[in-house]
Structures are given as C-alpha cells and as structure tokens.
C-alpha cells in the first residue's frame, strides 16, 4: 500500500496575508523579522504561536531566495562543529527538531549517513581526532572503518581510499520544502509576509520605524535575519561587531542515472587546505558534487566560473570516477555568510528590543528550528510577552522527494483528480495537478524559478527543451 502524500495541502485559506507590492499595511507590529530565508521563516513560525502581530519582510519576490535555496542540502548532526560553540549546540538541537518536524510535515529526508573518506596518510591520521571531536559535540555514533569496509559500502569509489569515519546520522533534506513549510505555517497562523520589501533604514525610538522600498513599517521588536546582509542591517542600528564575507560554493548536479553510483554522503576530511568537496545524492534522486570555497567581496556573485567547475571535476573524478561520465543537470552557486569567526553571531540588544541573527554560515538549514527557539528566548529576555502560546495547525507539504510516493505514480490520486496523471515536466515527472496546487498555495511562487522550487518543474536534464514553454504558460496564466 502506498501512503498518499498531501497534494492539495497548502491552498490558501482566506484570511492569510502575503503582499508583493503597494504600500504596506499600517499600524504597529509587535515583531518584525527582516529576511525570509530558512532562518527568518523558522523564527516567524516559532513566533506565530504567540498572540502577537508579526511581520516577515524580504527584499526578494519569494521566500528562501537567498542562500537558503542554494546549498548542499544536508541535515547535519553537528559532529564536526567547534565543541562548546553556539553553533555546536544549535545544530545538535536543530537536527533533532527538524528531523521530527520533517517527518510530521512531509519534508523529504533521507538518512543515508555520511562517510568521511581519507585519501592520504594525513587525512587518515586526522580521523581519530574527528571521532573524538564528534564525542565532544555529543555525537556518539561515529566510528572509524577500514578501507575494505569503505570499498564494500561504496563499490564505485575511486582507487586509493584508506579508511573513513562513518557518521550514520547525517541526512539529505529538501531545503526548498523546509523554508516553504515554515513560511506556510507562519502565514496561516497570522504572520504577515511582505515580499519585494527591502529594508533601507531604521529609526529607533519607542518603536522602530523601518524604512522599506514599499514605505515605512512600525514595529516594537526587530529581528535581523538578513543572511549575507545581516552586518549591514546591524550597522543601521549602530552595531559593528562583525562583517560578512561571502564565501562562494559552486556545485554541479548530475542526472538521476548517476544516483546508483553512490550510497552515502561522501564528505571530505577537512585538512590544511580547507574543507574539500563532497559527493552526495540529493532527495530529488540526483548526485551533487561540490562545493568550492572562495572568499569574494560581491554579495550578489552567485555565478559559476570555469576554474571552479574544472576544480570540482578534477576532485570528483578522484572520488567517483564514473560520475563524470554522466550528464550534468544543473550548475549553481551559493554564498556562505562567513564572518571570520568560528561561530554564529547571534546577539541580543535588549535595550533596543533587537536581536541579530548573523553569521549563520554553513549549517543554518540544519540548525534553523533551534536558532528560532533560541531567538524567541532572547526576545523574551528583552521583554517580549510570550504568554498565551498555542499549537500551530499541523501542515502537510507536497512531496518532492524521490524516496517517497510522488503523484505521477499514485493511481488513487489520479483516479480522484486526473490532473495528477498529466505529466508536464517529463524529466522530473511533474504533473499539472502539482503545478496548479503550487500556483494556488498559501505562499505562491513569484517567478518560474520559485515554481521550480515548489514542484521541480523544469529542473531536470533537458532544462526546458521539452517543457519550458508549457511550464511558463501555466505560470503566466495563474498570474493573469
């Protein structure tokens, strides 16, 4: 028997507020969160339990359109964090919270486990230290395995693997559905989401007056979850504790026929020359190779480079030679919010009724729910009334994961609604029913790319050769 995932779930109930243009609603908000990435939406969702008026604003036309859409999509255990850091604690807690939330909400997660493969004597010698560090991070299941076991568990691995650290708790997760689930639940519980709404300035008195591209917004409390721009928002409030340096990570995604080549998340052993690149399946049934690590000064430079791609291919050929023979589906890059400090920069400024959530570097997806709980604690310490919390309405998200039933294979669902049998995007097997649902959902996409993050439409090997115009037509029709 197949369990049907929710397909029509996030259709907008009448009373929700998502705005994309025009003047902002008047009045005073209790809390305003700047930035609707995975961190900002998680905070909005956590605050949505409270009887408060809350705004979530983002400069982009969609939620999750910054770093949260372009990462390696792993739900980390925190085994390799800096012991004793805030990040270590929040990733560990976040892993537990998000694992449970994902199961309840239908966010695809695959607990494949990771192998940190050692390719030379130096890396092999580093494994015991990493195992011991995992223990200090409260992670007890890591163990060192010999070369034969590595080979038996990953038969396609290139020659020369000397051993590995086995970390069974590391998982794949869908980053798009995670952010969207938080945002959907928050909006349904009354959070007002304002998109295309860039914060330009803040004047603080009894209340903050936030100047935005869509006019002023008044709020008592302010949360800065602006990702790469968290330092700039901080400066608007007179703080200069940290500077964000974008650290670019380029990635290559190989087509689903490569999926059979790899069974675990193959993490690099961090060494003197940086963190190295990983090879990992994705929940969409593909295989990812990357990321690079390049410090830039342009916070918008999410382009790929010839050098970056050549480097990835060279490293990938060593790790999994057969991978390079497969077709490439996508190339993308994300920017980590590095601060030069080995920890998150989460700071409370109670006198200003302001919390900064900065430096959420390369683990923010994993830690998001724990970060949110921590931020609400900090706001409460600063005087935000937190009485009267209620449970949120449960949510079921449409499934994008290959390891779970998808509509095109669900006979009962198609019998109920034949639109789930009408495949529009052939490479990714996305049906018209799913596209229709996404376009009518609580937080609808602002662009064809947003539609892709909700359905996978146009995200496959042909990149639109077959389905591009059909998908575009459906998007434009819904916007008319």
């Amino acid at each position, binding site marked *: 028997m197949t369990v049907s995932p929710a397909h029509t779930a996030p259709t907008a109930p009448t009373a929700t507020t998502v705005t994309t243009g025009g003047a902002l609603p008047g009045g005073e908000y209790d809390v305003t969160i700047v930035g609707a990435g995975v961190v900002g939406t998680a905070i909005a969702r956590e605050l949505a339990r409270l009887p408060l008026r809350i705004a979530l604003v983002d400069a982009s036309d969609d939620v999750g359109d910054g770093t949260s859409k372009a990462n390696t999509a792993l739900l980390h255990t925190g085994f390799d964090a800096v012991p004793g850091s805030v990040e270590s604690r929040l990733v560990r807690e976040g892993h537990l919270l998000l694992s449970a939330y994902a199961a309840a909400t239908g966010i695809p997660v695959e607990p494949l486990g990771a192998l940190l493969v050692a390719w030379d004597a130096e890396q092999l010698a580093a494994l015991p230290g990493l195992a011991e560090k995992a223990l200090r991070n409260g992670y007890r299941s890591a163990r060192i395995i010999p070369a034969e076991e590595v080979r038996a568990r990953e038969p396609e691995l290139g020659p020369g693997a000397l051993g590995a650290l086995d970390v069974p708790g590391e998982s794949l997760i869908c980053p798009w559905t995670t952010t969207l689930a938080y945002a959907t639940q928050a909006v349904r519980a009354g959070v007002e989401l304002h998109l295309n709404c860039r914060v330009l300035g803040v004047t603080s008195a009894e209340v903050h007056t936030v100047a935005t591209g869509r006019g002023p917004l008044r709020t008592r409390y302010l949360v800065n979850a602006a990702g790469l721009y968290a330092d700039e928002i901080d400066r608007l409030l007179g703080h200069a504790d940290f500077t964000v340096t974008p650290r670019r990570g380029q990635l290559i995604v190989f087509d689903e026929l490569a999926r059979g080549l790899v069974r675990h998340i193959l993490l690099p052993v961090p060494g003197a020359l940086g963190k190295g690149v990983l090879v990992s399946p994705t929940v969409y049934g593909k295989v990812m190779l990357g990321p690079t690590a390049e410090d830039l000064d342009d916070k918008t430079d*999410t*382009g*790929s480079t010839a050098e970056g791609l050549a480097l990835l291919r060279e490293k990938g050929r060593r790790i999994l030679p057969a991978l390079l023979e497969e*077709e490439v589906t996508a190339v*993308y890059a994300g920017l980590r919010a590095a601060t030069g400090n080995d920890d998150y920069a989460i700071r409370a400024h109670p006198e200003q009724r302001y919390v900064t959530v900065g430096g959420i570097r390369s683990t923010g997806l994993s830690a998001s729910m724990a970060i949110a709980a921590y931020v609400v604690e900090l706001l409460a310490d600063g005087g935000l009334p937190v009485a009267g919390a209620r449970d949120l309405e449960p949510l079921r998200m449409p499934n994008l994961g290959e390891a779970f039933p998808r509509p095109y294979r669900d006979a009962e669902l198609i019998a109920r609604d034949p639109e789930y049998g009408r495949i529009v995007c052939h490479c990714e097997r996305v049906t018209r029913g799913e596209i229709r649902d996404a376009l009518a959902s609580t937080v609808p996409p602002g662009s064809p790319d947003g539609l892709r993050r909700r359905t996978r439409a146009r995200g496959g090997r042909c*990149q639109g*050769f077959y389905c591009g*115009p059909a998908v*575009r037509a459906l998007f434009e029709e819904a916007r008319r």
Partner: protein
Amino acid sequence: MSHDRTVDVLIVGAGPAGLALAARLAGAGAGHVEVLEREQDAGGVPRHCHHGGFGGPVRPWLTGPAYARRAVRAAMVAGATVRTGVSATGWAGPLTLETTSPAGLERITARAVVLATGARERPRSARLVPGSRPAGVLTTGELQQAVHLYGQDIGRRAVVVGAEPVVRHAVRTLRRAGAEVVAVVTERPRGTAVPGVPLLTATTVGELRGRGRLSGVVVRHADGRTGILACDTVVFTGDWIPDHELARRGGIAVDRGTRGPAVDASFRTSVPGVFAVGNALHGVERAATAAAEGAAAAAPVLARLAGAPWPEAGPPLVVRAPLLWVTPNRLTDLTDLTALARRPLLLRSGEPLTAPVLTAAQDGRLLWRRRFPVRTAPSRSLRLAPGWTDRVDRSGGPVVLAIG
C-alpha cells in the same frame, strides 16, 4: 492499482520514427500496434518546426507541422493506435512498460517493444558554460515551442551558439519573434553562415552575465581576444543527446559513441524483444532518415513476432578519434547481412574531413579501406555502404573504424 494490458507491439514515442514504424507494422497486419506519446499531440519534434524542408526526398514547401500531421494520419489509417498524453515512466518487466496518463497507471506488456524516444539538445548547464543563471537562456527546442506553439515573448537581442544547420532555424525563429540576432558563435573553425548575422568562429562562450534577465555573454576567441556581446537571449543549439533514460533504466546497453541504445543492423538492442529507432539511436538526423529507420525496423519486428530467435550480440563496431560514432554498432548473425545490404551505416566525425580514407579492421586484420571523395562537416553523417561487413568474423574482437 495499475491496470495490466497486453499488446503485440508497443512503440514509445510518436515522432517520425515511431509513426513510420507503426504505419508499416499495422499495414502488415502485426496485430495490436500501440504508440505512446507523452505530449498532448503526436508528431514529435516537427510539430514545432514551422519551416519547410521536410520529407524524403526533401520538399521545400512541406513544413514540420504538416509533415507531422501526415505521419500521424498514416499511422492511424493503417490501423495503429496512437495514444497521446501517456508517458512511459519505467519498466515492470523485460517487455512490460509502466505508464502514467490522466486515465491512470498501466502496465503494458508487448511481444515487441520499440524505443523511438528521440533526442534533445544539451542545455547550457550540461555544456558547463559558467556565469550567472538569468532568464533568457534557451535551446532551439524550447525556442521553437515558445514561439510557434505558445506565442510567447522571447526578447529583443539574441546570440545563437552552435555550428549545426539547426542554427538557421534558431535564427529564423528568433527573427519571426521580433528579436535581432546579434551573432552566431561557434568554437569550431567553420560554422553555419546566415545572411545578415555576423558569424564568430573559433569562439567560445566564456560566461553568461546578468541578474534576473540575461544582459550579455562573454566571448573568447581562440587567439585570446575577448569581448562582451550585449543580449537578453542566448540560444544553445545542436549538441544532441539521445533521450536514452528509458533505455538505461531498462538495463539496455548504450553505445559509448552515440550514447543511444547499441543496436545491430536490425535495430535490435541488447534486451531480447526490445528495438530502438530514430534519433534515439544517434542524435538528430533529418526527419526522413529517422522515418526511414522506423520503416526499416518493420521487417525485423515482424520476424520477432513470427518467432525468430534473438541472436547473441556479435562484435561491437567502434570508432577512433576524430570519428565520434557509427550506427548500427553491433554486428550479429547472418540475418544482419540482408538488413545491412539494404541500409548504409551512419558515421560521424568530430572534425571536418576532406576526402578521407576510411579503414575497418578487426583483431589487427584490415577488412576494408575506401577513399571518400567528399568534404563533410561535423554536423553531417557519412553514409557507408555495408557490403564489407560480411568479412567480419562474428566471433572475433571489436571492429574498429578509423581514418586511414
């Protein structure tokens, strides 16, 4: 629950190849011949090629859509069932396909299965073109559908990338949509000249620029000069790859050169009962070539239905650089010789050839040597008369085709 059905012949893909085969088979009384097409309309790629030049022999006035309609009608008149909106999504057995359509899920078992799934152009990502990921980046397939089937807006200034004849169709479609074509760019030393459009040869696209919408492409000439072409649209053409996913998911051997299913001269794949025809075998040839392959596969499919055995795979036919691929690329038993006697082999080179001397050798023994008094471009296949293949030792090693 899936619905289980049985047919005599199941053809996946209602393009010129699948339809031509269906017409022949149904006309020859092959029983229930069913063609599955995942699009809402049958006809394949010609549906959105609004220019003339289809048919065999070429008819300048015959447009793609008209050609497609004829092919669909011919198959239906002959008695084949053509079902649209039905996707073959995988295999439930060696000769059983799983399908999805608005009518539900099916498992269709056939006595012979034919893959006629066509080919697509490699998109920008698969070509590893660096830069940003703006809107306005297309393939010819997407461009033609957007303009001819959907009447969508394309942009104002376009760059076309590629050297194959399809460049002309991309330029024509862009102009028809009201865009100015700024340049045709190809890394090859020679390209496809289009009147009124500058042709930049020996030039690569080094980077795409622009956020939101494409703002330009960085081009780099082999001599080191670089520049930026301002444009809001770029079309990546050619660089075909067979749609081989269904074949590979069925465990069907794929040829290293063509990346399509490996077949013998009777279009037999490595899996007994499964045939493959058309662009699924080799990337884009003319529609008439794909259709001719479909028609030629009728005899071996009928033989299979009549109980002919499935021969063991013989030696593979392989190529040496600069040759890219040859098809057919397996040499099986003697029934092949009759098939080969009628059909030429198709051979592609990655570089232009002037009066090449081709050789075929097996286990160090020269089987054949011939001079071709022609010039061929990398976008055109050489046709080799097949007579020499009767000298192949069926139990010997690979047969190697090379430039002598």
